[in-house]
């Protein structure tokens, strides 16, 4: 699992995850996700290249979301594939962290 960040207009940070968000993937990105969560107020998590999401991976998304929301910030998920989205919906995470498939709507939700 690789993680990269990109600063976008409007103070938005795009976090690009690439790989499997399983127990190993979650461990690989946890630290950086927590650093981002502690310092950014508008975060777009790009899931387009995430091929797997398990319960351990959910934790890697929910914990930073809690931190960002706790500081009055916003976070959205962008571009999950069908199966990854099924995990998000089954767990109800999508009701806490909005899921978008269009980049423009994802960015608009962070304004």
């Amino acid at each position, binding site marked *: 699992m690789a993680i990269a960040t990109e600063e976008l207009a409007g103070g938005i940070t795009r976090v690009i995850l690439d790989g*499997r968000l*399983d*127990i*190993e993937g979650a461990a690989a990105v946890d630290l950086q996700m927590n650093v981002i969560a502690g310092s950014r107020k508008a975060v777009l998590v790009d899931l387009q290249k995430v091929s*797997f*999401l*398990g*319960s*351990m991976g*959910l*934790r890697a998304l*929910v*914990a930073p*979301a*809690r931190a960002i*929301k706790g500081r009055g910030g916003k976070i959205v998920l962008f571009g999950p594939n069908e*199966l990854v989205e*099924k*995990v998000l919906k*089954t*767990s*109800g*995470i999508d*009701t*806490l962290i909005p899921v978008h498939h269009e980049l423009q709507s994802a960015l608009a939700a962070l304004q």
Partner: protein
Amino acid sequence: MTGNGTDEAGDRLALRSRLSDIARLRPWIEGLASRHAIPENVQFAINVCLEEALANAIRHGYGGAPDRPLIVHFTTPSAGYFVFAVDDEAPRFNPLDAPELPPLSPREEIRIGGQGLRLLRRFADSLEYEPTPAGNRLRIGFCAAVPAVRPK
């Protein structure tokens, strides 16, 4: 329950009760998928369910104690039907009796975890629990769509 690894046929995976050991699931499932032509979407479901079942056994069944045994057995009772049995030696507990938590809602504080049974029920095609002399067995079944055989 002894051994640490896969058996000769590769249909059995022995793990210890460490979360880091769950990482061994992926290559094992990939090997099974290659040999048994398990479709990608079924592999995804298998990974979701086994990761969850093993993590639950480690965290709750064994209470985080390391080096306790966990064995996953793979069988194919019929074409396109794949069953994984997860055996532990933890105190008796039927996870299927546990109430399924409602999905997280926007009004409540964000909780982490607690959604495992929901994931198991949505991604598995069958779930069966049985107590064993040593502990617990959870059987998790998955169906792959089998193409209809066309008459020649």
